[in-house]
């Protein structure tokens, strides 16, 4: 439940955005962030973007995630 994933904003419509999350495209709500733009990396939790990430930070996290085994996935 605590889990939050890095995702990149692909498209913005009002307060909603399309984001790529682990290769999947999902919806995320941007109302908890200010000034997010297409191309930004964000941390997404339960459908809400809660923080912006630098590309480097996002990359680091994704690298760590790549080492995850299947069990973690069910927590989301």
């Amino acid at each position, binding site marked *: 439940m*605590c889990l939050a994933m890095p995702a990149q904003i692909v498209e913005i419509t009002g307060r909603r955005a399309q984001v790529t999350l682990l290769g999947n495209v999902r919806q995320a709500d941007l109302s908890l962030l200010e000034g997010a733009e297409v191309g930004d990396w964000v941390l997404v939790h339960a459908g809400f973007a*809660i923080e912006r990430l*630098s590309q480097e930070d996002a990359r680091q996290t994704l690298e760590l995630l790549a080492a995850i085994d299947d069990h973690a996935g069910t927590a989301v």
Partner: protein
Amino acid sequence: MIARPIRIMEVCGTHTHAIGRSGLRSLMPPNIELVSGPGCPVCVTSQSDIERILILARRPGLTLCTFGDMVRVPGLTSSLERERSAGADIRVVYSAMEALELAGREDGREVVFLAVGFETTSPGVASLILQADHQGVANLSFFISHKLIVPAMEAVLQGGSRIDGFLAPGHVSVIIGPEAYEGLAIRYSVPCVVTGFEPADVLEAIVMLLDCIVEGRPGSFVQYARAVKPGGNRRAWEMLTRVFDITDAEWRGLGVIPRSGLTLKPAFTRFDAAERYPLPEMPSVQPPGCRCGDVLRGLIHPPECPLFRQECTPRNPVGPCMVSSEGSCAARYTYG
């Protein structure tokens, strides 16, 4: 190097997982003990709330939307899973957004979203309520069981558990900021390190924590700097405080902790499921033999509970610590 026994507590289900999954415990020197605290919001939902949620679920014409890990939490005689098999309309969602969408699509039904979670989740729910309010949605309400993590950490310390340091939750801290732990750290001389959710993060954080403990430096520090910023996410917090008031809340295993829960502000009462539907006061009753409370307070490890692996398993959980995959007992059972 330190010789005396050191107890480090984590208060985030993801950390429980990470530690379990990676076998980090077995890597620790014998004097360092990793203990799980009340970090799983599903686990700490009071039985009183669970019974009332089940009553809601049984209402005809009502759709209950919930996060997945609430589904198998056992009440006295039932669970959402059981109710679903008995015909209740219970939908697992990934985000509260889906509840809003559902309410929009099925305007003949009453939709209730089960709002459980710590400060990572509650700002999103707050945002959603504002949206619902703005849109004038009439068939959506929320059963609020959100909680705040810092009062629980304080309650653990006040309860006499000897804790030398905390691994503070990473994503909660994205919202509340690392400063939120400073008061606690200084008052009780317990350093806190905001930790990321990967085993590598946890290991790094433990090292930082040990440094602080040895040098006698109580304070709040950040390991998970890639996501956690000083001050946290002010906008998210403001949204939370626009919609919610802070109230006393009952935590399973810890009792009532003052100002540790959220309740809707008067302006949003019509979104409160507990106001909208008649829900009786239900006292909390502990299943006999269940020691989830002591596990949550870090007083015992899961294997020390007499029911662990006997009557209580992930398939047949007695208490919530075994139900949610983030619960201490479930993690221990799975990862050893």
